[in-house]
């Protein structure tokens, strides 16, 4: 299982969509699921997320490790929210129905359970969208899409460079880390906090200075090719928008507007069943 998410080409209809469409999907989906606490809207979105995720044919091998991380963070977050404010749910929904008393001043309430349930499905709604966006979007096409939605091509090019060099930098990092480990520098939790910070420096400094050298090399090469001379540039991996792209985009916008109207119809972001 890979530790990091990667683009892999599969020939599904989702792959055929352009980067612009997928970027729009990712942004709208995460914004809407961020704003709304309406359980009905979230459940519909969750259903869509799962169906689309299935259709994209992403394998467990690609996302398994990352998915376990998401679960871990979700659990931690839910537990911590409960310990810090066990009555946040009651505050939001305005009623308090105790199920059972736990200990001290802590009691489990129906409202709290419902509130945390909402947080949980928020996570599960966004996660497939992010996983899918990363796994099905060609990095260089992504940079072209950024340019198309109005972001200056300089910034688009920065993104392209970042995506292109993540594997290289990671390789540098592993090499430096192994070299320092061979010299006997302790990186695990056995060392004390201060010496761990100091030991991190022995990796960080060479890694970042290598990066600075790389910046010089690349910017010299780009300068020689007269990058940035014109106001516009064309992209090799840019693809024209097709009917499917327009259909998805229209659906997304209509869905998002509808979801937000439904959410705010009763004057608050929360759906109150109590």
């Amino acid at each position: 299982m890979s530790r990091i998410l990667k683009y892999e080409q599969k020939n599904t209809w989702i792959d055929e969509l352009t980067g612009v469409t997928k970027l729009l999907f990712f942004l709208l989906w995460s914004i809407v699921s961020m704003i709304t606490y309406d359980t009905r809207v979230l459940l519909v979105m969750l259903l869509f997320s799962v169906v689309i995720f299935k259709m994209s044919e992403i394998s467990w091998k690609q996302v398994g490790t990352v998915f376990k991380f998401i679960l871990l963070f979700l659990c931690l977050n839910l537990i911590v929210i409960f310990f810090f404010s066990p009555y946040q749910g009651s505050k939001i929904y305005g009623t308090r129905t105790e199920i059972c008393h736990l200990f001290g001043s802590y009691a489990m309430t129906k409202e709290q359970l419902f509130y945390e349930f909402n947080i949980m499905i928020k996570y599960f709604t966004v996660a497939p969208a992010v996983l899918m966006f990363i796994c099905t979007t060609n990095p260089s096409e992504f940079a072209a899409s950024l340019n198309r939605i109005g972001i200056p091509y300089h910034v688009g090019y920065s993104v392209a460079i970042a995506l292109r060099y993540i594997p290289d930098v990671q390789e540098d990092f592993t090499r430096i880390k192994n070299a320092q480990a061979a010299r006997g520098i302790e990186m695990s939790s056995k060392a004390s906090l201060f010496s761990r910070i100091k030991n991190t420096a022995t990796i960080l400094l060479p890694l970042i200075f290598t990066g600075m050298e790389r910046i010089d090399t690349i910017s010299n090469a780009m300068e020689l090719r007269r990058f940035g001379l014109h106001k516009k540039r064309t992209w090799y991996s840019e693809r024209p928008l097709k009917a499917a792209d327009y259909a998805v985009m229209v659906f997304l916008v209509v869905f998002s507007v509808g979801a937000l109207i439904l959410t705010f119809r009763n004057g608050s972001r929360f759906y109150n069943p109590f």
Partner: protein
Amino acid sequence: MKSKFGIKEVVATGIGTALFVVLTTVQIPLGFIPNTALQPRAALLAFFAAVFGPVVGGIMGLLGHALGDALFYGSVWWSWVFPDALFGIIVGLFSSYFSIKEGGFAKKEAIRFNVIQIIGNALAWIVVAPLLDILIYAEPAKKVFVQGFFAFLGNIIVVGILGTLLALGYAKIGGKSSSLSKED
């Protein structure tokens, strides 16, 4: 103050973001508060912002955090992405006071750098991040302020030690221009 976005800045943003993303996994956990740990990548961001200015710092914080979260954790926690961008911008705004590229980063500059980074971190993690958490995710206030405070504490330690070391080291290697004097 530099506001232009030339070739060097384009590449610095790209490579800086790549470094930031890779360093996402390098963390020293701080305890039982989830998602807070000593993050060496904060030192990287402070260093790049101090060398290349606010535009590089801002984009690198935004993009690096969003991409790093997405690639490694599969979800993007937007209320913590924007504070990183803000921190990059704040440190970057004062980049001309540090003169790292010119090789003049000494005791006085190191103090300035640390004052700025503490102010920047305080604004980003004690003020903006918890407020966005409450505004966007409607999380309990007590929890997010404790989380924000620990993030602040961790970041000022990391940037204070590692960031200062980076700036000192780079000023020593990279600084050559100060040895030249202008002829009349």
